[in-house]
């Protein structure tokens, strides 16, 4: 008997900390870090900086190049746009609901939006800017100095403040009033009959909500699904250069011969993270194709096929779901209709 009690205790200990798995939550207020309170002026400044091409080395790229409001704050490409003459290697994730994420980037290398914002600016294959130089470029613009003074109390332009303002703007990009939100708030007719069946598959036989749950329909964790590499990308020497560059920066010893994306392993060097990628939000998923970290799937139907087949070859996580054609279709309808909120109204700022 005592042994049984210990066994139960042990089993409890082994349960994942994400005890809320499977539990979906409607949209709610965004968490705001105490170090970077939201103000209207800061959000407006952040929006200007977000679309300012001064943030890139050659003045051709801004954050909105790859996070385009007209493309679901992504860029609609399999792999993200790039600094001229280079190529990126991963898909541009949507910024919608990014405020709810515990980790940023597909490999989770940043823990806050403030930290995240500076990476692409410095990245040789993205905005390729020198941050010391960028600070001076922004400081030469009187309108910016006035805005920094209003927002931060003095006119000093630092990379940290630039990142804070951009992060504040990004925290305003929230998916609201999706049929799922209304449904979870008690409106039983918010989902169409087909979408409702899809919802039941999502939370049941499809096992989607084991990882896609909470308000953001994600688990803030990393999983090894063995999504196939895109053979076209493996052949492109520019992408090889990018992959090896990132691996080198993260002190991966065999960076010169690296021929695939190691995912989170680059950050943790933990063997279990080899080819692990972050669970993405599913909010507004209909408007943010293509899908997966390398954009290999153009449609949700393809993504559903991938999961239905039990994921990529030899993956340790997924098992075949045996969904019927009808069930797959219902799931797709739920993802498309149920998770698409009211359009985010957006007015492009005037860059000083």
């Amino acid at each position, binding site marked *: 008997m005592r042994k049984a009690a210990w066994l139960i205790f042990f089993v409890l200990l082994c349960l994942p900390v994400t005890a809320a798995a499977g539990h979906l939550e409607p949209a709610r207020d965004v968490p705001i870090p105490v170090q970077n309170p939201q103000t209207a002026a800061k959000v407006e400044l952040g929006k200007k900086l977000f679309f300012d091409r001064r943030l890139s080395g050659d003045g051709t790229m801004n954050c909105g190049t790859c996070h385009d409001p007209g493309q679901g704050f992504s860029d609609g490409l399999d792999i993200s746009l790039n600094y*001229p003459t280079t190529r990126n290697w991963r898909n541009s994730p949507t910024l919608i609901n990014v405020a709810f994420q515990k980790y940023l980037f597909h490999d989770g290398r940043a823990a806050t939006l403030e930290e995240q914002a500076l990476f692409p600016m410095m990245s040789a294959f993205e905005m390729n800017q020198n941050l010391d130089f960028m600070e001076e470029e922004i400081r030469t613009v009187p309108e910016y100095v006035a805005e920094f003074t209003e927002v931060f109390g003095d006119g000093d332009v630092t990379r940290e403040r630039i990142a804070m303002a951009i992060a504040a703007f990004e925290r305003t990009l929230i998916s609201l009033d999706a049929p799922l939100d209304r449904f979870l708030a008690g409106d039983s007719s918010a989902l169409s009959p087909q979408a409702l069946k899809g919802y039941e598959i999502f939370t049941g036989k499809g096992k989607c909500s084991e990882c896609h749950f909470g308000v953001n329909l994600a688990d803030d964790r990393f999983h090894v699904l063995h999504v196939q590499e895109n053979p076209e990308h493996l052949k492109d020497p520019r992408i090889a250069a990018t992959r090896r560059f990132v691996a080198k920066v993260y002190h991966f010893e065999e960076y010169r011969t690296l021929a695939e994306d190691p995912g989170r392993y680059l950050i943790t060097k933990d063997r279990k993270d080899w080819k692990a990628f972050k669970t993405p939000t599913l909010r507004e998923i209909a408007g943010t194709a293509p899908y997966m970290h390398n954009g290999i799937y153009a449609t949700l139907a393809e993504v559903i096929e991938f999961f239905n087949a039990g994921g990529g070859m030899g993956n340790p996580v997924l098992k075949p779901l045996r969904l019927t054609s009808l069930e797959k279709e219902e799931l797709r309808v739920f993802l498309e209709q149920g998770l698409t909120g009211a359009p985010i109204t957006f007015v492009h700022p005037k860059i000083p």
Partner: protein
Amino acid sequence: MAAGPTVKQILRTYPGKIRLVIKNYPYKYRDFARIAAEASLAARDQGKYWEMHDILITRSPKLDRASLISYAGELGLDVKTFTESIDNSRHAKEIDRDLQLAESIDLYNTPTFYINGRQVVGERPFDYFKKIIDEQLNKTAR
């Protein structure tokens, strides 16, 4: 990789339904971008724009003057006329006009497409264009 094959596929798919207008946007930080734009227009004068376009893409970044002249030879162009054209920057005005147009509409990325005014930045697969074009054609038909 470049958008050329996709553009050609679009033209083949919609014969007589699409008008393609190409504007030059030589990247300001590349040594040979400007002379390569001149070369493509000099080839156009002799009826071989696409042939030169394709060779520029496949041989890039080898786009110095001597290479361009040798490509003109490969394509069977009148090399003397071609060389005079690029040496005298014969199409400078046209290229400058295109650059000004791009800057006036806050355009910085190549390739960028406009399909009846709808902006598409970057290379895209054929199906991406097809969806937009079909929408536009349906709208026009109505």
